């Protein structure tokens, strides 16, 4: 086993560091299911998580919010996971005043620096709306197929915060993305 280099971007908390009232988790081997089927199951899982926690928390808006956040994070996981035995894990934790969505997947270490630069540009942006518009105009100009607006939309429109943990080994890096959704005053 080689050495693992751990780095954090944003305000990341380990699942073990919080006293949760409930946890739901789902994991699948990246290579086990065809990408198209994994894509469809991602929608079913995200919708289920939205419905499940709406029922538990009795907050109407949480359903759509969770659906979008879980689906977007899982879409990134499906796209970036390397085809091997590595797991994609989604874990949804409920503490009294917030929901924490952890999505863990593997990625090619060579791609990590570009991804970190993208994350930094989003976390450090003073105005996410302007960043969104800039990204759209740049995509039109360059013809770039990647959207790169999922993470911006989660932060800008869905009221969640995002952070990341990278566990980097020589060829493979495990990425854990955490979305924290405050429950606050909406809770009945």
């Amino acid at each position, binding site marked *: 086993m080689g050495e693992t280099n751990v780095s954090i971007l944003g305000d990341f908390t380990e699942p073990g560091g919080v006293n949760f009232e409930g946890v739901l988790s789902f994991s699948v081997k990246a290579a086990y299911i065809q*990408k*198209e089927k994994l*894509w469809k199951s991602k*929608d079913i899982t995200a919708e289920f998580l939205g419905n499940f926690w709406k029922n538990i928390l009795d907050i109407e*808006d949480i359903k*759509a*919010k969770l*659906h*979008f956040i879980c*689906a*977007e994070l899982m*879409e990134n996981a499906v*796209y970036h996971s390397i085809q091997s035995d590595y797991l994609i894990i989604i874990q949804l934790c409920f503490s009294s005043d917030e929901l924490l969505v952890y999505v863990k997947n593997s990625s090619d270490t060579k791609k990590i620096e570009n991804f970190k630069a993208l994350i930094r540009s989003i976390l450090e942006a003073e105005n996410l*709306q302007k960043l*969104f*518009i800039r990204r*759209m*105009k740049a*995509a*039109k100009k360059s013809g770039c*197929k*990647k*959207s790169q*607006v*999922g993470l911006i*939309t989660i932060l*800008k*429109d*869905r009221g969640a915060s995002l952070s990341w943990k990278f566990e980097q080994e020589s060829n493979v890096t495990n990425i854990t993305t955490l979305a924290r959704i405050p429950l606050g005053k909406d809770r009945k």
Partner: protein
Amino acid sequence: MNIEGEDYKVTYENGVITIAGKLSLMLEDYEKLETFFKKIVESEPSEITLDIRNLEYLNSSGIKTMCVGLLLEADDLEGLKMRILCSEHYTWQKETVPTFGELMDNMEIVFG
């Protein structure tokens, strides 16, 4: 003109693009929708109505396709007016669609 998938339907009739259902395709699968939008813009209409009142879900690749493939392309056509019909019923529309306003000069976003 229309595109139909398992969970969604897109039609264009009498200047109205209607998108309904749940649209969460893989990025590469949005190409047919991009081509669909391109054909509409290339026909140089003076007004386009985008009716998404029954669009329950749109993933980020779909948001990008709508913004880049339709709204920004339409903004290049001088004098073209865009009207987006939205529903208060869907949270994502209330949160995200108003932010499209800066992509086009001649755009009206209507919630009903």
